[in-house]
């Protein structure tokens, strides 16, 4: 079965190559080629999964060695793949959700003339992400990592005719480069420490390395994870990435890209286990991002940006769990998978809403849409219930476990982390309820109002054809879009329960990530109760603010926090002030130093030599007799020296 690993990646890669190189001849069939190849990849994944299930728990790691990539002396980099339970989980998520998003995109991108190219990019995205999770060493992982960055750049900037999209793509790419730098440094450190960067030897020998080195590697890995997973302080690209087509947002937020960071930290668990300081930093980053994303999500009126804030927050949960060590790895991955289902569902639902509302993204111009798009309403609603952790749905199981693990960290840290996680759960419930109420309930604020105001250009060029100034006629989306949403809604509802049934997911992942049962200071039942209470509070507050009273079409000024949150908690301003201004000041001061000090030394040397020469050249008056005097004087000095030496 090992030989099936390469085709798993090859299928979408082939799709990308064919679609991007095939030219216009493939325009009519391009989307089908892409979807079929993604589906083929999913089918191969399922076959492999079935194979793994048929093996013993310790025998579930498959290796495929294709060829030696860079054999130089003791430096060996192979194109080799490793498929274990962790990779398998990701493969199924990526290919499964990815395939659904492909299907959805067929309908969503129907009117886009560059649809073939879009599917090519989607396939490339899948291939890169599969390479990332299937790599058997960090260097190959890095290749996939960069591939993901490239594909995300191409997809976020897919509508490159919009300056905002082009800028957003550039921003995502640049912020990701910072993280990539961390990963490359981490790989170099690994090579100097362990002499290799294959997963097996590195993670096996991690226990022998000094804690300092492990901490350094861990922090660099965390930096990489922050970049890809949009964690503080490298989170700023995620909101702008909404400039891409909605399926891209779904793909980035649910199945690929942002999950890469969680995968990296979980995969490198052995390194983090040996570096408590790095783990602490991971936890702090996760907790901060959790609250950061949640607060941002509360203030956004743009439905996609609200969901983006939510993603940030949920990934924060995962990073927090991953930072907790063996008690959290499994739950991080579990939340990742369930999040993959419901967040994909939510994004696809949001796309469906936009599709029916002439690409209007401002939730204040929605309202009462449940009557017009029932399927979307139901699937979105199930995703909503799942993400807020409604008991019985998948989000409940995974999030509850993370909160429990946070408390189980122990000591003051445990209380703080648990408190933060609980607070995050309450805020999640609040903003998601807000999105739900503003979109599907309340009065129909879109009546008698043109959509997609000229101030905010249409996200989808197709909207221009349909006439953006007309009053929207909300309608249900085509089957190609609703079916994936239904499938994902099923996942959102049942995945958590399935995973938690008899701890099946824990037993599945335990051989790879390890598992330690946490002992929270308060009982699991108490944690669950607290979670539910937080959920109820969040929902209640949201209902009081947005369900009971009508939602104003123009956003009120809001409190200071709200205004800050609307501006993404000033992250861009922070970056501008600290990085851009700081960089400018640094550059200017360096230029100043260069002009005054360096040039001063250089010019001063030149000037002093020039001045000296100007004085010395007067000795060269051209008179042979003057030179003769010098020569004669020199002879006299020579004689004096000789006599002196003889006398001494």
């Amino acid at each position, binding site marked *: 079965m090992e030989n099936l690993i390469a085709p798993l990646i090859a299928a979408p890669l082939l799709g990308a190559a064919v679609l991007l190189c095939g030219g216009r001849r493939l325009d009519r069939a391009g989307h089908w080629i892409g979807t079929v190849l993604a589906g083929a990849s999913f089918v191969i994944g399922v076959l492999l999964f079935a194979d793994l299930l048929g093996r013993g728990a310790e025998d579930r790691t498959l290796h495929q060695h294709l060829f030696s990539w860079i054999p130089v002396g003791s430096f060996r980099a192979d194109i080799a793949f490793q498929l274990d339970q962790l990779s398998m989980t990701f493969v199924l998520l990526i290919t499964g959700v990815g395939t659904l998003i492909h299907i959805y995109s067929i309908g969503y991108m129907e009117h886009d003339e560059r649809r073939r190219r879009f599917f090519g990019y989607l396939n490339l995205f899948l291939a890169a992400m599969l390479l990332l999770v299937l790599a058997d060493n960090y260097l190959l992982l890095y290749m996939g990592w960069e591939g993901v960055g490239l594909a995300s750049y191409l997809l976020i900037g897919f509508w490159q005719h919009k300056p905002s999209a082009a800028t957003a793509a550039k921003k995502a790419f640049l912020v990701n480069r910072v993280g990539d730098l961390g990963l490359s440094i981490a790989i170099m450190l690994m090579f100097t420490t362990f002499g290799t960067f294959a997963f097996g030897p590195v993670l096996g020998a991690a226990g022998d390395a000094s804690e300092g080195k492990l901490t350094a590697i861990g922090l660099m890995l965390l930096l990489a994870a922050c970049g890809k997973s949009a964690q503080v302080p490298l989170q700023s690209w995620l909101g702008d990435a909404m400039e891409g087509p909605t399926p891209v947002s779904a793909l980035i937020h649910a199945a690929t890209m942002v999950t890469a960071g969680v995968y990296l930290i979980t995969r490198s668990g052995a390194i983090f286990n040996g570096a408590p300081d790095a783990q602490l930093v991971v936890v702090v980053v996760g907790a901060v991002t959790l609250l950061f994303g949640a607060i941002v999500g509360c203030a956004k009126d743009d439905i996609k940006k609200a969901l983006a804030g939510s993603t940030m927050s949920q990934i924060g949960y995962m990073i927090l769990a991953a930072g907790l060590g063996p008690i959290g790895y499994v739950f991080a991955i579990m939340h990742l998978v369930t999040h993959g289902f419901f967040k994909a569902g939510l994004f696809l639902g949001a796309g469906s809403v936009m599709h029916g509302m002439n690409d209007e993204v401002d939730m204040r111009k929605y309202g009462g849409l449940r009557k017009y798009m029932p399927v979307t309403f139901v699937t979105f609603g199930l995703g909503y219930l799942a993400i807020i952790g409604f008991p019985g749905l998948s989000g409940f199981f995974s999030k509850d476990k993370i909160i429990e693990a946070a408390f189980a960290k122990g000591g003051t840290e445990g209380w703080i982390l648990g408190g933060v996680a609980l607070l995050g759960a309450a805020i999640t419930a609040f903003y998601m309820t807000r999105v739900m109420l503003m979109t599907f309930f309340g009065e129909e604020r879109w009546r008698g109002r043109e959509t997609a105001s000229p101030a905010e250009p249409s996200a989808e060029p197709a909207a221009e054809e349909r006439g953006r100034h007309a009053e929207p006629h909300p309608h249900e989306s085509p089957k190609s879009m609703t079916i994936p949403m239904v499938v994902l809604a099923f996942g959102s509802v049942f995945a958590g329960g399935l995973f938690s049934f008899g701890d099946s997911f824990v037993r599945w992942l335990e051989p790879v990530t390890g598992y330690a049962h946490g002992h929270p200071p308060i009982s699991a039942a108490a944690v669950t109760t607290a979670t539910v209470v937080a959920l109820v509070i969040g929902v209640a507050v949201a209902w009081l603010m947005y369900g009971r009273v009508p939602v104003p079409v123009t956003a009120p000024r809001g409190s200071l926090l709200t205004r800050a949150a609307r501006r993404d908690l000033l992250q861009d301003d922070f970056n501008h002030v600290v990085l851009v201004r700081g960089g400018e000041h640094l550059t200017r001061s360096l230029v100043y130093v260069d002009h005054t000090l360096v040039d001063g030394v250089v010019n001063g040397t030149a000037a002093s030599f020039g001045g000296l020469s100007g004085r010395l050249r007067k000795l060269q008056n051209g008179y042979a007799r003057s030179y003769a005097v010098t020569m004669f004087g020199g002879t*006299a000095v020579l004689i*004096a020296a000789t006599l002196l030496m*003889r*006398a001494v």
Partner: protein
Amino acid sequence: MIALAGSLAAAASSAAAPTAAAPSSLSSSLSTSFHSSLTSSLTSVAASTTSTGEAVQFWILGTVAVLGALGTILMKRAVHSALCLAGTMIVLAVFYLANGAYFLGVVQVVVYTGAIMMLFLFVVMLVGVTAADSLKETIKGQRWLAALCGVGFGVLLIAGIGHASLNSFNGLGQANAGGNVQGLAALIFTKYVFAFEITGALLITAAVGAMVLTHRERTERLKTQRELAQERVRAGVQLPPLPAPGVYARHNAVDIAGLLPDGTPSELTVNKTLKGRGQIRDVSNEAIADLRALEQRSNERLGRAGRAGGGAGRPGGGPAGGSAGGSAGGSVRDKGEEIKR
């Protein structure tokens, strides 16, 4: 000349062997009075003093040499400097002889004083013998620096010599035993033969170099005799040879213009250079006066009178020259009378 003779004698007495070749025989013939000192010097291989005669000669001629040297550098005219230097060189030649270097002494006189100094004089003449240099210094501080360096150098050199232990000397008695010239020849053609050959090459190079340096490339073709003749005919000026200077063979000096038939001097007969310098003697008046006196005496003897004017005009023979001859004759007559008074 007395000094030279003395120096030769001193040279023979101090350093030379009795069997030395030409110089020593010359010295022995010139000065037999120093014979005793000669014998005493022969006996000592390493002496500390020389003879008194040589000391006297040294102090006298040394003073002359220094004065000559100072004259060389202080005389305004280059030709005077050259003469002063020649004097110093002759003194040095004497000192060479006194030091037993007979061959070098002669060479010094022949080559240096005779050839090189004449070359100097030749160039001085070429550049301009009358030009006097200004001794005013134009480079600022040059003279002071020169003085400082010179004094420092001289003092250091003399101090160095004084410091060295040179109290005794060997003398050239042994070395010059087979004759100075033979000794030198033996060394030059054995030990120093390569240096000698190279020196020969150097001299040839120097000769060629001097020729190259002073050679002027001809820029146009030399005109042939025929071309020159044709040019002359075309110019139409004085085709036949110029008339010779001098008057009736009474004077054949080049600085006296020849007389035309009417007695006036001809400009063509004298050299232009002499004329430019104003060195032409105008003796035609005397000659004419002499002629007139001669004619008068013959007239008196022949009993003819009052025809002096016609006599003076007769050699011209032409009707055109008559009046001119008469006037010239008149002026000569006046002069003749003045001379008589």
